[in-house]
């Protein structure tokens, strides 16, 4: 067949609602649309008029999978506006809660949403019938991340203990020590996860991606760093809006982002890993090498291995932080309110999450801008499909559709965040 339409009405195993339309003419892909039809939720608009202190709790509601990312980016952006700097043990506790979110979010995606693609199962439920012990390991790994978030965030979903300036309450050494026991198990389980995912069959597909991530002088990035790329970008976060622009496209309720003069770019675990391999812990680096990964990974299907390496890193880093924890004297620093603007970028599980706020002298939000990672990856996902689909055009319709969905799931898209799911249409004429 020389032409066809591939149409997936609702993409499965992704967060949120969207679809996919691919038009093929003369065995060439002439159009790809990642259609995000989940309605926009206008968070940026209804933040206006609210007090700055409410922002971490409101923005956490944007996503049930990565609320910590929204709390971290918003808290840092407002602190940036007020000239406040959270340091010491409070800063480390922020890294620790982010470790928890990465572990739970990545474990859910690796085991429940992505692995079935590689092992030929419709979903994790079918996979569990043949691989029960593996699925149980994934669930326990996720639980280890949940426990960090629950302890530091007050609850597992939509945590309520993060505030501008720090936390409302900080844990005792004993509470963290109790977490460490499960995390030691989780670190071993994460290492086994790297080995397991590395043994999966990967399509021979690589692209010369433009990666963008945070880079910190001596840490694998969570909350801070400069925005860097593999094409020479190296800016402070305050220059984000000078370098990146958002564009409206007719087929998506989520704005597309491009890097000025370069175009589409890739954010998330593979970008973070490829730009920060030297910042991973020795254990994570060794596990990556043993898994056959090179310091730069350009096969998006191997993102499942990279995510597993990041789970390992997060367990390792969490244990490091817990081992040297001393409760801070106060759970939060004082925040000097003033009329100002501030921004921040932190590394959500799915990539960089940019927040910018303008606040008046009373601390009332006048203006807000939020750029989630999935919206930044939309164009790269469409480009992947343009190049990936021609290799598989002879496949039966349902198998081709499934391959396309797998290619989308490489990005662990959170469409709820971006507009915040997926229909696939392939038009072969």
């Amino acid at each position, binding site marked *: 067949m020389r032409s066809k339409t591939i149409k997936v009405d609702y993409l*499965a*195993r*992704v*967060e*949120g*609602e969207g679809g996919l339309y691919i038009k093929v003419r003369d065995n060439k892909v002439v159009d790809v649309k990642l259609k995000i039809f*989940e309605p926009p939720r206008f968070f940026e608009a209804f933040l206006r008029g609210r007090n700055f202190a409410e922002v971490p709790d409101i923005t956490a509601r944007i996503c*049930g*999978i990565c609320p910590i990312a929204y709390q971290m980016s918003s808290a840092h952006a407002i602190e940036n506006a007020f000239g406040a700097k959270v340091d010491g043990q409070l800063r480390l506790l922020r890294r620790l809660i982010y470790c928890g979110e990465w572990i739970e979010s990545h474990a*859910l995606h690796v085991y*429940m*949403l992505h692995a079935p693609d590689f092992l030929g199962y419709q*979903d*994790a*439920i*079918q996979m*569990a*019938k043949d691989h*029960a*012990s*593996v*699925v*149980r*390991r994934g*669930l*326990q790994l*996720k*639980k280890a991340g*949940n426990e960090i978030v629950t302890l530091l965030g007050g609850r*597992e*979903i*939509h945590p309520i203990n993060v505030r501008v300036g720090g936390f409302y309450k900080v844990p005792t050494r004993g509470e963290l020590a109790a977490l460490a*026991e*499960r995390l030691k*198990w*989780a670190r*071993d*389980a994460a*290492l*086994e996860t790297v080995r397991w995912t590395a043994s999966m069959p990967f399509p021979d597909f690589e692209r010369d991606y433009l990666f963008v991530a945070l880079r910190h002088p001596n840490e694998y990035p969570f909350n801070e760093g400069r925005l860097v790329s593999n094409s020479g970008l190296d800016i402070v976060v305050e220059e984000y809006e000078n370098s990146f622009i958002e564009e409206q496209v007719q087929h998506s309720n989520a704005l597309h982002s491009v890097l000025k003069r370069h175009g589409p770019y890739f954010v998330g675990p593979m970008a973070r890993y490829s730009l920060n391999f030297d910042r991973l812990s020795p254990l994570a680096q060794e596990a990556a090498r043993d898994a056959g990964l090179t310091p730069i990974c350009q096969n998006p299907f191997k993102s499942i291995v990279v995510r597993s390496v990041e789970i390992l890193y997060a367990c390792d880093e969490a244990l490091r932080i817990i081992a040297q924890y001393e409760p801070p004297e106060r759970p939060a620093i004082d925040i000097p309110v003033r009329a100002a603007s501030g921004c921040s970028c932190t590394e959500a599980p799915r990539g960089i999450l940019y927040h910018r706020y303008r606040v008046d002298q009373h601390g009332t939000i006048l203006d807000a801008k939020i750029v989630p990672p999935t919206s930044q990856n939309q164009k790269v996902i469409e480009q992947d499909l343009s190049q990936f689909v021609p290799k598989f055009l002879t496949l039966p319709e349902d198998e081709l559709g499934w391959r396309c969905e797998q290619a989308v799931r490489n990005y662990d898209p959170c*469409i*709820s965040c971006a507009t915040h*799911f997926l229909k696939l249409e392939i038009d072969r004429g």
Partner: protein
Amino acid sequence: MAFVAAALEEGPTEVGGVIQASRVLVIGVGNAYRHDDAAGLVVARHLKDQAHSSCEVHEHVGEGTGLMELWKCAERVVVVDAVQSGATAGTVHRFNVNLSSLPASMFRGSTHAFGLNEAVELSRALKQLPSNFIIYGIEGQNFDTGIGLSSAVLGAVNDLAEKLQHEVETM
């Protein structure tokens, strides 16, 4: 590196279960800020107010792995959630998931990729499904942003809460 693969299969050693097996676990599932989606939560609050000693009541947002963790040590479980099947608002559906699967399309109220239906079926595949497991679905009408139940749903919630007080005694 010391590494014992077998120990990784089942997870770390657990100290005790989440629930006493002698009690019925009742879980109300929903989003409190999506009108009728809160129906399960309101039923749970009614039962909590009755302080029923024979049951342990939880409210839950419906994230699948969290639900599995909650019911994995329980033998008798009742879950109440809002559903959308096209039936008249306030219709109460009852499912014995030990006998058959849930109608998946009915429980797609959440955009989360891993919700109640997936949690039930994954528990079944892992042979962790509680031996006596009932799910009630209350047909909702309004799932828009905001608080408060539709009148038809509120009536159904009150009736089901009263019925459950008796049902948990006989499970």
